[in-house]
């Protein structure tokens, strides 16, 4: 199957972007993603489990993330957990979204929305 153009996903929902960011360095299970996002954003972005669950399903459906084949050591694991990792498309989409945001911030700078430096 030909993978779709990442740009068709832009702008990405902030939460989906956060999930992709969270999975950028390693595969995580659902609650680990929530915890990582909360930690990284200093508690600004607090996601509920149900929301995350639906979001993950949607992102899997869209081919942005997939279930990871590799699992951690058995003593840390619970068989009911599913571990996710970004797909190639997911990585491309998160990169494209990051670039888009960068451009946007650049524009805001030039308009001095963020104040004079």
């Amino acid at each position, binding site marked *: 199957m030909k993978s*779709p153009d990442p740009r*068709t*996903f*832009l*702008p*990405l*929902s*902030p*939460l*989906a972007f956060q999930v992709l960011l969270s999975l950028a360095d390693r595969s995580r*299970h*659902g*609650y*680990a993603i*929530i*915890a990582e996002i909360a930690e990284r954003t200093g508690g600004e972005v607090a996601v*509920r*489990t*149900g*929301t*995350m*669950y*639906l979001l993950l*399903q*949607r992102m899997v*459906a*869209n081919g942005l993330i997939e279930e990871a084949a590799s699992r951690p050591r058995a003593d840390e694991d*619970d068989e*009911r*957990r*599913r571990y996710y990792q970004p797909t190639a498309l997911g990585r491309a989409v998160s990169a494209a979204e990051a670039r888009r945001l960068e451009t946007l911030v650049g524009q805001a700078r030039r308009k001095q*929305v963020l104040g004079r430096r």
Partner: protein
Amino acid sequence: MSIDPELRQMRHDAARARAGSAAPVRAWHALAERLDFARAAAGERRAARTRAPISGGPLMLFDDLHLAWRRLRGKPGTALTAVAMLTLAIGVSSAMFAVADHMLFSAAPFKDADRLRRVFLGETIRDSRSNASPPLARQFRQVPAFADVQYLMQDSVYLEGLAGLASKGAYWVSPGIFDMLGVRPMLGRTFTNDEGRQGTSDRAVISERAWRGELGADPNVIGRRVTLSGEPYTVIGVMPSTFRFPYESTQIWLPYDIDAPPAERVTRRVDVVVRLDADVPEADAASLAARATAAEVSATDKQGVLLRPLEAGLLDDYSRTAIQTLFGGVLLVFVVLCANAANLMLARVTARRAEFGVCTALGASRRRLLTQAVVEAGLIGVAALVAGTMLAAALVAATRNLMPEYILWRTLNPIALDLRALLATAGLAVVATLVAGVIPSWIATGASATASLRVESRGSTESRGARLWTRTLLVGEVALATALLVGAGVLVTSFVRLMRADPGLDLRGVTMVGVSLPSPYFKDRPARAAVTESIERELRSLPGVTAVSLSFGAPPSGGGFSWGHLVADGQPLPGDAEQIVFQSQVGSDFFDVYGIRLLSGRTFAPGEDVNNVIVSEGLASMLWNGQSPLGHRFRFADGKTDMTVIGVAREVRSALSDPREDLPEYYQPFGGAGGSTMMLGLRCAGACPSEAVIRERLRAANPQAVPYRVASMASLYAQQFERPNTAASLAAMFSVVALIAAAGGLFSILTHAVGRRRREFGVRSALGAEPAALRRLVLRDGLATAAVGVAIGAGLSALGSKVLTSIAFGVSAANPAVWTAVIATIVGATLLASWRPAVQAMRADPVELLRDN
């Protein structure tokens, strides 16, 4: 229902992680999590359903129904509003359909009504005769194309009842006519074939109305002797009030045998009703009939046979046009309400686009999603159908009670919510459901999974397709509301003008009493003169009565009319049109009593020459075109003596609402009491005595004198206002419903749009847009929609203006005042509907908005 273990695990992880935090916070988190968990669990269940393979079958439908019910219950506000709107749409249109159908379209309520025909003699209907000489009429039985031939002959009789004499419409009918029509009496029997000859014609079938009214619903009425115009008859049957034949006013049927009629009816002409043979085409039947009867055509008959269906509707042009126009108006309201419901449903399903996207991503086909949406719309449709039918039944019942009786009697069909109306209701419901439910679902389920993710995350406006559809519906609603408002405006303005129109006489403090002295009871002129004098004396002595004028003929339509070619001063009027002129015979005090001003000349003196007349303004200008008519002479071309004009009176407007029916009039001197019909005008100081008091006094004067009309002049004229009043009120009601619906639609759509564009407004505001500018943005959005709608509505009204003008009184659909009012109303409603959304946009706080998400 099991929950995906992963979700359960995620929740478990979360609970464990929270175990360290403080108790109240923990409790709060736990609650919030539980709610969220429940939502996700429901989502999981839903997804499980949509993922099910497309197999169809009853179980699936049950699932769909269950799901649809849960969804509707989950967001009952929109669903209930949609049901309410569709209910209103279906109910009002069905009720109007029932009325219009019974008044205009339905066949007469008889057996094989589509094969029943009235026979007319002549080549064209314009100059045809409706009745035939008996030999010719008998000959129709030889026509093979006619399966049945029956005869009837009009009459009118005085029925002696509980409250004295009452004039009743009667028909002599051949005994087989009841079988031909397929009707049965509610009591007793109808005529047998040996009735209607000399010696057996003293039987009568009476209507339920006469039985309940004049005969006091006598349980032993069958076999009872009644007196009709002084002759004894035996009641043998009572027909239910739903049987109206050949006219709604017919209440007595008497037997008539065309082969052996009683001596007094041997030569009377008869109407012929036939049933066509099913196998012979109608055109052939008419020519067969003409050929078979040619030998019997007498000097008084006409060549040629025309067959016309028995029409149920007996409406005049005004009512016919008015009912059609109002029916059209109702259909417009129907469309507006459906469009509104469609918009609501569209907003509702648009909000679920993300869900549809996920379902699609998870493998649900569009057909599957559509099926679900259709089931949901179907539930709303069924609810609206049930409620709409009840509403229609209530409205039809109300119509029966509220409509002026003389309109209700103008159809052979009693108005009811019958099968046809119910079928129409069901049809309307299907259309409404399709428009309001299925089309929005089609648009919303078209979302691709990716698009739905994107749109939801950004909170921008809805998809292009949805927006286009929404705006189109709104523009349509405004356009139809405009057209309805123009219609209502024209009819209301017309009604106001009608109320203010000068009838040409004084309506206050005058009551008209029309009295008949039936010849069976009052044999000769001196007898009638004596009774008349005593009646006049009685009325004069009533309290409050200051003057009584005895005449033959009274406003608004005189006593009789003359027609023909007019000859003024020996010169025939140009053109060959025949003129119809009302004529009355009046005394010297007539003009004072009725308040008709004499413009020039004088009133009649006692013993006035019978050829001296007073003409109305209209007749004067028709004959002498502006010159003073005093001393001039005129006559009808076939009249022998000239009439000399001695005075000119104000034109009495006989039919205010329709100038075509308004005829000029002239007055001749009253020849003195002794006629069998007379009118007494009572001029009263203040209010006139009530109808009951007057009738009581008349009965006291002579129980056999029949007061066929006792009415104040004001109420006689008010009757003319009733139809325009009904039309104007209904039109106003329809347009108000449409306006409210359109404004409500505008309001909800703008609110919706502003809600979706909050981020945009926040950004705009952050970038320095003035709040007022934001408000302008939204208001302009609303006004632009309204402006396009008004423009299209103007086009629509132009299309309908001809019909509208024909039932309006001196107002055209292009009336600037009406248009100013309509545009002002629409602009006002638009501003009202846009104001709150606009203020919401203005209040968009950039900080809060940017923090969202």
